[in-house]
C-alpha cells in the first residue's frame, strides 16, 4: 500500500488521491500521514488493531501506515452500535481500536487517531517488512462476518499490471472494510487515479458523487447498479457519462449488462469474480453474462485456477487469504469450494446463486438466481429478491419481493410476475409475490436468506 502512495507522490505529489465533497487529499499528504502513522505504530508497539474511522482518506492513511509498520489493521464495518463494535473487538482479540468516533473514546483500548500521532513515535521504516498482514471481514451475508487474514503482498499482486491512468476518477461504492473496496483502492492508486468517496454507500449517494465530483469509473454490485438505474429513472435527467463500469460481488445477469450498455453507451463494461477468501480471479470484458470457459483451463502456474465439482465452483488460489482468524492456515495449493453454484451453458460458465441460498421445495432444490433473472425482465419491476419462505406443507416455497417502478400498478406488476414465471418448473414458480418499498441488502448484495 505504501508503495502505491510513494509511486503516486513521486510522479505528482499534488495529484488528488481521495476526493469527497468538502475534502481532497493528495498523494503527497496521504503519504506523509501514512509515514507518521507507521512511526507511531512502531514506537507504541501496536502490532494489530481494529479500525473505526469515518473518512476513507483517514482509513487509507492508516492502512498504508500499518502496511509500512508491519502492523495488522482491520477496518470494521460502519455500524453505530458500540456494543456490536465491542463484540467484534472481543471476537478478534483487538486490544487496540484506533478511532475518530467520540462515543468510543472511553472504551478500553480505544485510541483516537490524533492521540496516536501525538504519542510516542519514531522515524517511519524505510521499507515495509517482509510480512504485511491485513485482516478483512467478509460480508456476513450467510452468517456472522468472518475475518480473513491477508497479506498486502498478495492483495497488491495485480497492481504491477495496472497501467497509469491519471485523471481517472473511481467511485468508492464499497466500504473499505470490504475486500471489494480494497480492490478499488488498489486499482485507483496503482493507476494514479483519484478515489472519489461519496457521502454514503447507497446508490443515491453514488449518483450524486458521480454527477458532482467528476466520476468516470464505477465498480459496484449488480444490486447496486439496479438501484442506481432506478434512481436515475426516478430523478430524471441525462445519464452521466461513465467510461468504465465494473460489476462484482454477485452474478451479473445478461439483461442488466444490456441495460447498462444502453444507458451508458461510452462505457467499457467488465465483471469480476473475486471473493475475500480467494482474492481476485480475473474479469470478463465481453459484455456477456458469466465467465468464458477458458477460466477452467488455466495451467498449474496460474495464480488462480478453477473447476466445477457437482455444480459448485472450486478455486485454487495463491492470491487469496492466508486463513480465517483463529483457524489453521489454508494451503495455497489446495482446492476450496466457493459456495457458488455454476452451470456450463454453451461457451460460458454461468452463475446460479449460492449454495447457501438454495431453496428446498418439498425435496426439490431450487436456485433463486435464475428466477430473479426472469422476474427482473418483467416491465415495472425495478429490483427483485427471491428467497425461500418456510412452509409447513413443503418445507419452503419460493417467495419473491419486488420493488415496483414509480407509476406502475403494483397489482398489475405482481400479476405479470406470476405470468412470467408460469414456464418455470413447478417447484421454482414463486408461490408468494409481494411488492415492497425496499429489498433486503447486506454489503451491497441482495440478502436471499430465508425469511423467518
Amino acid at each position, binding site marked *: 500500500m505504501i508503495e502505491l502512495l510513494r509511486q503516486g507522490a513521486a510522479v505528482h505529489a499534488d495529484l488528488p488521491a481521495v476526493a469527497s465533497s468538502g475534502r481532497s487529499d493528495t498523494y503527497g499528504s496521504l503519504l506523509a500521514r501514512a509515514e507518521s502513522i507507521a512511526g507511531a505504530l512502531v514506537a507504541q508497539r501496536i502490532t494489530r488493531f481494529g479500525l473505526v474511522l469515518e473518512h476513507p482518506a483517514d482509513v487509507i492513511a492508516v492502512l498504508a501506515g500499518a502496511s509500512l509498520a508491519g502492523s495488522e489493521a482491520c477496518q470494521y464495518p460502519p455500524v453505530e452500535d458500540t456494543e456490536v463494535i465491542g463484540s467484534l473487538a472481543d471476537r478478534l482479540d483487538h486490544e487496540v481500536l484506533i478511532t475518530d468516533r467520540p462515543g468510543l473514546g472511553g472504551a478500553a483500548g480505544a485510541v483516537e487517531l490524533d492521540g496516536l500521532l501525538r504519542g510516542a513515535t519514531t522515524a517511519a521504516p524505510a521499507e515495509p517488512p517482509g510480512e504485511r498482514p491485513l485482516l478483512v471481514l467478509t460480508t456476513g451475508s450467510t452468517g456472522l462476518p468472518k475475518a480473513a487474514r491477508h497479506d498486502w503482498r498478495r492483495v497488491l499482486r495485480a497492481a504491477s499490471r495496472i497501467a497509469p491512468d491519471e485523471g481517472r476518477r473511481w467511485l468508492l461504492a464499497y466500504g473499505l472494510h470490504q475486500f471489494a473496496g480494497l480492490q478499488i483502492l488498489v486499482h485507483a492508486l496503482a493507476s494514479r487515479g483519484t478515489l472519489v468517496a461519496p457521502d454514503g454507500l447507497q446508490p443515491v449517494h453514488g449518483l450524486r458523487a458521480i454527477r458532482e465530483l467528476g466520476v468516470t469509473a464505477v465498480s459496484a454490485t449488480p444490486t447496486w447498479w439496479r438501484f442506481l438505474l432506478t434512481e436515475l429513472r426516478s430523478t430524471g435527467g441525462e445519464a452521466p457519462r461513465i467510461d468504465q463500469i465494473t460489476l462484482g460481488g454477485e452474478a451479473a445477469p445478461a439483461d442488466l449488462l444490456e441495460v447498462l450498455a444502453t444507458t451508458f453507451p461510452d462505457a467499457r463494461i467488465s465483471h469480476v469474480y473475486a471473493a475475500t477468501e480467494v482474492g481476485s480471479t480475473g474479469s470478463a470484458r465481453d459484455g456477456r453474462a458469466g465467465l468464458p470457459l477458458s477460466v477452467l483451463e488455466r495451467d498449474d502456474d496460474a495464480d488462480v485456477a478453477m473447476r466445477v465439482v457437482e455444480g459448485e465452483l472450486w478455486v485454487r488460489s495463491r492470491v487469496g487469504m492466508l486463513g480465517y482468524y483463529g483457524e489453521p492456515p489454508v494451503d495455497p495449493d489446495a482446492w476450496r469450494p466457493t459456495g457458488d453454484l455454476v452451470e456450463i451453458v454453451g461457451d460460458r460458465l454461468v452463475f446460479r446463486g449460492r449454495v447457501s441460498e438454495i431453496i428446498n*421445495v*418439498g425435496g426439490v432444490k431450487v436456485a433463486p438466481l435464475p428466477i430473479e433473472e426472469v422476474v427482473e425482465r418483467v416491465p415495472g419491476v425495478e429490483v427483485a429478491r427471491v428467497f425461500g*419462505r418456510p*412452509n*409447513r*406443507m*413443503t418445507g419452503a*416455497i419460493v*417467495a419473491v419481493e419486488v420493488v415496483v417502478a414509480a407509476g406502475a400498478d403494483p397489482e398489475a406488476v405482481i400479476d405479470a410476475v*406470476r405470468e412470467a414465471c408460469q414456464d418455470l418448473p*413447478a*417447484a421454482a*414458480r414463486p*408461490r*408468494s409475490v*409481494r411488492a415492497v418499498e425496499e429489498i433486503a441488502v447486506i454489503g451491497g448484495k441482495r440478502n436471499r436468506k430465508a425469511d423467518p
Partner: protein
Amino acid sequence: MQVERTEVEATIRGFLQRVKKPTDFSDDTLLHGDGLNLDSLETAELSAVLEDAYETDPFSAESVPPETIGGILDYYSALASGG
C-alpha cells in the same frame, strides 16, 4: 381476530381463480383429490395467501391441516369467537 366468513371465501376464490381451479365450492368441497385437486405446491401457496391476508393460517397452525373448504372457514370462525 374478526374475519368474516364471506371475506375468507372471497380470498380463497381469488386464489382458485388465479390457479385456474373451479371457484364454485361449498363447505364440503374437498381441497384435494376428487374435489379441487390441489397439489402440494398449490396447497402451500394457499397457506401463504391466507397467512399474508390474515397473519395466520390453518395449514401452519393446526396439527391436522384442513381437508375441506369448510375446515379452512371454521378455523377463522373459531378465531373470531375466541375458540
